[in-house]
């Protein structure tokens, strides 16, 4: 479904991502793990066109999207939940969710999807009319995921959904991510919490200093001695 080939991204002469190649099949959850600064976020940003690729190619459902306009990416079916959540702080919770459906005009189905999101995250319904900036970090993460789902994407890109959250929140959020994936969503997940990422995915890629150094089935990587030593703290 998503094919990244030889992708290069540079920031002012620094190679953040060096010729990486990977793919995500339809219906699959794939994790991209690695240390801080390995280039994971940059990779997602390049796919979502928030940064320009210096070289290489990105295809989504057979279509080349590496030069698409940033605001067209969601129309093609990719929704990114950005690092740090990026909720609109002075929009209400309900407005944040509705703006997730900005590209849609099917008012009736939008209301239905809103109910589905509130079903996933009842906390959001309780805070419907509150400004998003007043929510806790975990609630903002719920909101960011809900907002992404409101576009009815074919693929979800998640950038560090567990970052800075209490364990109980992380648990809740990953429950929903797994439920969404089980319902058929294609997911590309970036996580510093490698164990969580590997336990929630079918396949994974390991990134180090802008390159992919390892890949395979998540269960295999969970037992790989190198991964265990470098990322699972064993």
């Amino acid at each position, binding site marked *: 479904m998503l094919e990244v080939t030889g992708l290069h991204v540079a920031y002012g002469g620094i190679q953040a991502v060096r010729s990486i190649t990977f793919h995500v099949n339809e219906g699959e959850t794939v994790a991209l793990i690695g240390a801080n600064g390995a280039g994971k976020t940059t990779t997602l940003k390049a796919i*979502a066109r*928030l940064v320009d690729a210096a070289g290489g190619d990105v295809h989504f459902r057979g279509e080349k999207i590496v030069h698409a*306009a*940033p*605001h*067209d*990416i*969601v*129309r093609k079916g990719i*929704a*990114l939940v*950005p690092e740090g959540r*990026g909720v*609109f*702080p*002075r*929009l209400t919770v309900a*407005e944040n969710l*509705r*703006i*997730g459906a*900005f*590209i849609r005009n099917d008012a009736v189905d939008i209301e239905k999807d809103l109910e589905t999101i509130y079903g996933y995250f009842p906390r959001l319904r309780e805070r419907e009319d509150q400004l998003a900036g007043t929510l806790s970090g975990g609630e903002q993460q719920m909101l960011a995921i809900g*907002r992404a789902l409101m*576009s009815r994407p074919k693929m979800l890109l998640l950038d560090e959904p567990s970052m800075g959250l209490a364990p109980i929140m992380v648990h809740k959020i990953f429950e929903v991510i797994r439920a969404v994936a089980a319902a058929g969503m294609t997911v590309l997940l970036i996580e510093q919490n490698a164990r969580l990422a590997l336990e929630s995915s079918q396949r994974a890629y390991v990134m180090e200093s802008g390159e992919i150094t390892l890949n395979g089935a998540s269960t295999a990587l969970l037992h790989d001695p190198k991964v265990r030593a470098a990322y699972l703290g064993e």
Partner: protein
Amino acid sequence: MDIFLQQIINGLVQGSIYALVALGYTMVYGIMGLINFAHGEVVMIGTLVSITVVGLLIGAGMPAGLAGLCGLVVAVLVCMGLGWSLERVAYRPLRGAPRLTPLITAIGMSIVLQNLAMILWGRNYLTFPPLLPKVSFELAGTHFTLVQVAIVAISAATMGGLLLLIYRTKLGMAMRATAQNPAVASLMGINANRVIAAAFVIGSALGALAGVMVGSYYEIAHYQMGFMLGLKAFTAAVLGGIGNLAGAMLGGVLLGIIEALGAGYIGDLTGGFLGSHYQDIFAFVVLIGVLMFKPSGLFGEKAGDRA
């Protein structure tokens, strides 16, 4: 006491006009962090275009009120086109440039528009034909005219409409989202260029309306009139907290009232040393005061709040 009430009314009228112009500054600033110093000139073009249209139509025998309405419509359309072109030609190529660059460009565009207006309409003062009958009312010892009532009523209705647009429509939601976080807004499928263009077009339409009001209030216009009006409206936007819509509205009305009261009492306060023609100093005393003591303005958001 009579002077006090009278000056409050005068200030409310002038302040409504400031508020409409201030909204143009604040909308553009809120979305792209640019102070469009050419906005005062857009207002001036609105006034001059309406003078020409109204003059022609009245000359052709149309009743003044209807001619004024046509003049208003044409001025609004011309200014919308002008605002759109300004953004497209002058500011869009500078997106991502250091902040000083578009600011200097804005001052440049202001000079260009002034000179263009001078070429088209000449250097002389133009008289604005009266659009409404010269009826005046008396209430609690104060006097006011039909034009004054119309200015306040139309301004209030327009600002109410703007708030509905910004807070109740999809375009408004997209504008607020882009102001708060342009990158994430683009992830939602919002085209930042369209939102920015919309801010310019809407701001310019409000400016044109203000321009027609100024013209019919003072019944006089000039190619340099946009400069002082623009500066004062900018002051009003800063007073309310630049980037904040309600702030621009309140700031405009407050500034109008401060100015009117200042002009009404400056003679008494200085023992006749300074007269009411010094009223312009109040706007700038307010500007300096706000910048010194509360740079974020009355409703201003913390600087870090703009993503």
